[in-house]
């Protein structure tokens, strides 16, 4: 569905994407995970056949976006980072009018709109103006709009950024259903839980390059231990404490507010810390996540 080789994007002197290779197969849910400014959105705009590439090669649905942009876009669903809904139009009008851009008849577009409003649970708001909707509703409407043309490939740029937990779960549920229907999904996110929930395969991006790739489970096995023990000490003590417990784990990360001990037996590490007479304010043993993978690969957190 998507095949990129040495893909680059520059804006003047600034190089947002510095040569990435990506392959996405049919029916796959593929993610770009990375912090803000990693080059995810620039990559997505190129895959959306909206933004021309600076260099490298890119094929979308077997076509070249420079030559067949319009034909490619006819088969894509695009959910941009910022909702580009028309605030002055109603919920229904926003979708019905959009279907017409794809050459659908008025009747076809209207019936598809009813179907999709049902799918994203907004049927009761069909006549409301978009500006009266909550953030989560607008996001669901944008997702619905990207489905108007029954796309072969759905692109979602930060689908749940800015939503409250309930709205996020609602949207994830809808995306999960699409995935089960066989729609190919490509999404960007800076939430590791979102990547874990939705993606079969993902790449970790940082500063315009891909630093690792694989399934969420593979990435954790490869770049982290199974468990993590989090220790919280008093402010400013973490650096000194790291030296005292360094030998108890395979690796220790010092964060401003806590220490992370990477080990395959987190409980044992916590006990060993206690046995040395150290008394953290709190301690917690958990499974490793993609957040740990990212921290290990880049030395920074995903969400600053």
């Amino acid at each position, binding site marked *: 569905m998507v095949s990129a080789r040495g893909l680059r994007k520059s804006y003047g002197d600034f190089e947002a994407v510095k040569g990435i290779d990506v392959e996405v197969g049919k029916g796959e849910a593929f993610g770009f995970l990375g912090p803000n400014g990693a080059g995810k959105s620039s990559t997505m705009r190129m895959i*959306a056949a909206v933004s021309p590439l600076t260099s490298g090669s890119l094929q979308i649905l077997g076509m070249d976006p420079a030559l067949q942009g319009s*034909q490619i*876009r006819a088969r894509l669903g*695009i959910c*941009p980072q910022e*909702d*580009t809904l*028309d605030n002055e139009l109603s919920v229904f009008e926003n979708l019905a*009018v959009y279907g017409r851009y794809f050459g659908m008849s008025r009747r076809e577009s209207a019936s598809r709109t009813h179907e999709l409003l049902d799918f994203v649970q907004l049927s009761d708001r069909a006549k409301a103006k978009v500006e009266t909707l909550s953030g989560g509703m607008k996001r669901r409407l944008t997702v619905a*709009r990207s489905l108007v043309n029954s796309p072969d490939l759905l692109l979602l740029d930060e689908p749940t950024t800015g939503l409250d937990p309930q709205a996020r779960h609602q949207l994830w549920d809808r995306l999960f259903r699409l995935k089960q229907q066989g729609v190919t999904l490509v999404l960007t996110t800076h939430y590791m839980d979102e990547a874990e929930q939705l993606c079969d395969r993902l790449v970790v991006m940082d500063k315009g390059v891909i630093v690792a790739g694989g399934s969420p489970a593979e990435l954790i096995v490869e770049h982290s231990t199974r468990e993590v023990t989090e220790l919280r000490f008093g402010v400013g003590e973490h650096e000194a404490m790291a030296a005292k417990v360094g030998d108890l784990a395979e690796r220790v990360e010092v964060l401003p507010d806590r220490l992370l001990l990477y080990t395959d037996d987190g409980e044992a590490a916590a006990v060993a810390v206690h046995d040395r007479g150290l008394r953290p304010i709190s301690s917690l043993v958990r499974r490793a996540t993609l957040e740990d993978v990212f921290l290990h690969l880049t030395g920074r957190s995903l969400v600053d």
Partner: protein
Amino acid sequence: MQLASRLTDYWVTRFKRVWKGTIFTSFLTPFLYLAAMGVGLGSFIDDNAGPAALGGITYLAFIGPGLLATTAMQTGIFESTYPVMGGFKWHGYYFSMAASPLTPSDIVAGHLTFIGFRIFAACGVFLAVLAGFGALESWWGALVALAVSVLVGLAHATPMVGLTSRMQSEAGFALVFRLGLMPMFLFSGAFFPITQLPSAITWLAYLTPIWHGVDLTRMLTLGSIDTATALLHFGYLLACVVAGWFYAVSGFAKRLAL
């Protein structure tokens, strides 16, 4: 540009939301202008200078077509400022169009068609008011003048759409209105023959599309057509539309292709 007709429903839907709010003022403005300038100032001029001063016509007959052309210009420019900026900045409708099979030239063509319709409607209303003042010589001339008004409006709208697509902030519009629209309105030849001005300024006025629009519209409504001059006006206005079109499409292509 061949997919532009797919935008019809969008612009019709938008128009349905706003037209009721504008209908009263769209009649009021021409009425006030024609009452004050055409009748008020007009009777003063006609009484004191006599019809000979304007080549045998009343001041109302002189100013009517001039104001028709400037109405076309004003509508064309206004519709190409905030509504175009809004598509990029406030409502993002251009970006949602660009995510579909539509190309930048489709998007520009769609919006310009709508702007053309707005010019047509505004000038149609103006002609109706002018008829109410009994200042229309012939229906035939009025209809041709209406068609020409759309050309006059678009000659200003296309370059303005291009300019707006290159502007990051709406703050620049104040400059456009004061330094561009206002002088063009006053020195277009709508209110007085521009040969009254110092010759340097007269030549400057010849370069503006609005002077060509005013002179052409006046010829048509008064029936005193000089074919060569009329064709020159028509060609100049058409050239503005074509140049403005390319300027607008390239501006949209750049802005939408981030």
